[in-house]
């Protein structure tokens, strides 16, 4: 319902405009300062599609060099010191978004990773500079966890990190970021 509404609303808003046949990413980048109504729906549509792929049954935990990617493991250690440090920082970002938002793991074109948090529909791909190609996200809008965890966002975030993260998808996003400086789309 939530994701479908963003998609349907976006389609209605761009119909008959120059944005009508543009890619989601182009729309997001074109509207993020000038057209908040379109931006909110476009970004949320992208964010949710990305989020679904960031999860897999029996995922989560520490990524494995052989199973997932050596590059990913190396970059996590290089950027955070250890997986545990990354996990702590990501959980903190997810738990301290003061409202509806998202926690992100992002990469620059060299594979330097960092954790970001955004509010509302905001996506780090529109951040200035070339810092921020999203490679992993966690939705912390209340609708993402309320029925299952009520107010206990930290329990949801723990479950996401320990049981759901799709490290294969994260590794693919990292490869693409390093090869071409491009987002998943």
């Amino acid at each position, binding site marked *: 319902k939530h994701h479908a*509404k963003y998609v349907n609303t976006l389609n209605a808003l761009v119909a008959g405009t120059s944005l009508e046949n543009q890619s989601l990413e182009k729309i997001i980048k074109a509207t993020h300062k000038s057209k908040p109504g379109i931006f909110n729906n476009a970004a949320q549509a992208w964010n949710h599609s990305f989020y679904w792929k960031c999860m897999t049954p029996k995922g989560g935990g520490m990524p494995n060099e052989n199973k997932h990617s050596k590059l990913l493991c190396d970059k996590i250690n290089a950027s955070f010191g250890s997986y545990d440090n990354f996990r702590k920082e990501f959980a903190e970002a997810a738990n301290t978004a*003061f*409202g*509806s938002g998202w926690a992100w793991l992002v990469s620059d074109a060299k594979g330097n990773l960092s954790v970001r948090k955004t509010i*509302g529909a905001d996506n780090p791909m529109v951040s200035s500079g070339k810092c921020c190609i999203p490679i992993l996200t966690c939705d912390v809008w209340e609708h993402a966890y*309320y029925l299952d965890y009520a*107010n206990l966002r930290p329990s949801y975030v723990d479950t996401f990190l320990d049981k759901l993260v799709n490290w294969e998808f994260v590794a693919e996003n990292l490869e693409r970021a390093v090869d071409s400086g491009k987002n998943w789309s």
Partner: protein
Amino acid sequence: SLSRAITTTYHIINNNTQSQHHRRPSTNKITIITMSAKQIITPALRAASIHVRSSNLSPALSKSAAAHLSTAPAGGGGGVVHTLPDLRYDYAALEPSVSAETMEIHHSKHHNTYVTNLNVAMEKLDAAVSKGDAGSIIGLQGALKFNGGGHLNHTLFWENLCPAGESAVPSGGALKDAVEARWKGGFEEMKKEVGAMSVGVQGSGWGWLGFNVKTGRIEATTCPNQDPLQATTGLVPLLGIDVWEHAYYVDYRNVRPNYVNAIWDIINWKTVEERLVAAQQQK
């Protein structure tokens, strides 16, 4: 008894000062001062710590005493410990508009967490203020706005709700006059506009009816997240509608418009009018 406690504290500190010439001040004495200081509320404590700083104590003694005195009380910001307010009605009293389940989680978990975290932030603020630590004071602003706003907003919210049987749109009086001065279509038009604005909030936030003390008129507006109405816009809050998903998700899932429509049945118009009258008198 408060002034006696303060006098006793000064006495102990002064006695310590006199003995300083003969031997090093004992930290045990500082601890005893701190234990009795814990009974004193913060305004008095601040007075004591200011005295300690300005008196002729050795720098080490006055610094440690000031640090102890400023961190000792349980509750920062003027000795006030914020508490979760009781509701004037049972959790189930607002059904069917809002379920008992939602009320219980919303009040005893969400609001309670804002109160707890506000008290934590206030204690930290107290410590930072007494050290004059500008960096930390600034760093605390996010937590203060979020948790302080959350506490203020929810306290107002519970009070402007009531069981449907007690909810009655006034047929005359200050509120009716103010609404009709602003909206030609009266309450119905006001509800449409406030409702639409509340539904339209992107992400988390609140819909508000507020009083503009400069123009003397009421206005509809929204604020994001837990930003409190008065500190953010200057408007005096009259009626708040929580449109964070936690306010309606259990009962209405994603259909916020249904929740906002239903909440009009449980508005405590008496409280809204009382707030308006009080605000009008401020002019």
